[in-house]
């Protein structure tokens, strides 16, 4: 039980109890724990309780997966890798085509002399708004996310 800086005697006792039931006590620590258990009967009760918990969990095991899972495992991972590339290409193609279609449509509508002016302004606002939102999302994903200092801090 090395590298175990302890802040309080209670914490020391808890760690000795854990190490004891997990079979990770050194010779010196075994003596220290025995002394503590002799001096504090409540600790001995706690130690026995943890020992019973250990016995119960020790008798359990994770349920094994069906054998066929392993033969298909790599193939499934490989499909995911391919699908990832597929989605990137699909998204790029869709963005270019949709943008071109939208641009062509808007250009024709604006050039249409029969269309009221407020419709043209609304269309322009809609187009500019969409572009701003799209650029903002892409910038956040590609730039801000990478520089986010606390993105790996887990709650």
């Amino acid at each position: 039980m090395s590298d175990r800086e302890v802040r309080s005697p209670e914490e020391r006792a808890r760690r000795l109890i854990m190490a004891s039931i997990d079979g990770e006590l050194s010779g010196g620590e075994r003596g220290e724990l025995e002394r503590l258990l002799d001096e504090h009967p409540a600790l001995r009760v706690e130690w026995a309780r943890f020992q019973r918990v250990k016995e119960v969990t020790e008798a359990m095991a994770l349920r094994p997966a069906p054998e066929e899972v392993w033969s298909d495992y790599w193939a499934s991972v490989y499909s995911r890798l391919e699908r990832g590339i597929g989605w990137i290409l699909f998204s790029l193609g869709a963005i270019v085509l949709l943008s071109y279609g939208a641009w062509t449509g808007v250009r024709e509508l604006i050039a249409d002399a029969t269309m009221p002016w407020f419709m043209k302004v609304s269309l322009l606002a809609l187009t500019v708004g969409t572009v701003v939102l799209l650029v903002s999302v892409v910038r956040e994903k590609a730039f801000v996310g990478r520089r986010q200092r606390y993105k790996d801090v887990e709650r």
Partner: protein
Amino acid sequence: MEIALVEQSEASERALVQRARAGDRRAFGELVTRYMRRAYYAALGLVGSHEDALDLSQEAFARAYRARANLDPDLPFYGYLYQIVRRLCFNFLRDSRTRRVRMEEATPWLMNQAGAKAAATDPARSAERSELCALVQAAIERLPEREREVLVLKEFEGLRYREIAELLGIPIGTVMSRLYTARRNLAAELEGVL
């Protein structure tokens, strides 16, 4: 002899990681085959469902490959992979939709190792053990994720404190404290059957 084997295995893993880092999918496939069981069971212990553990562990490998530029051949590959597995699992558990589905369909992911033998000789004792197993499983599922993780690594993966500390990047003392709290909570939950 054992040390030589470990060194040989480390050297071969380093070579595989280097090749995978360069985009060699076959080398990455070998790493997947080497660690798929460990990744799956790590995820199973955290999320408690076969399908989800399979999906999350496979997704972890896919993400590890996509971010292969971050792979360090001098560090154990599993340590890198495990960080992805646990993050995916924790996010999965925190997802409110997941919580709803999990409450509706609890599946057994733990088993009593002596259960099969007992079933043949003593059905009553076997039923008792199955009941205890279900209670332990439910109690573990109610543990906070960090405590559950340390307990699973210790009890079901059989890692030593030092190995858990290295894998999680935390001091050994923290491993022991989390284990203490986890077991204290389990003891309280299993009060009637201990």
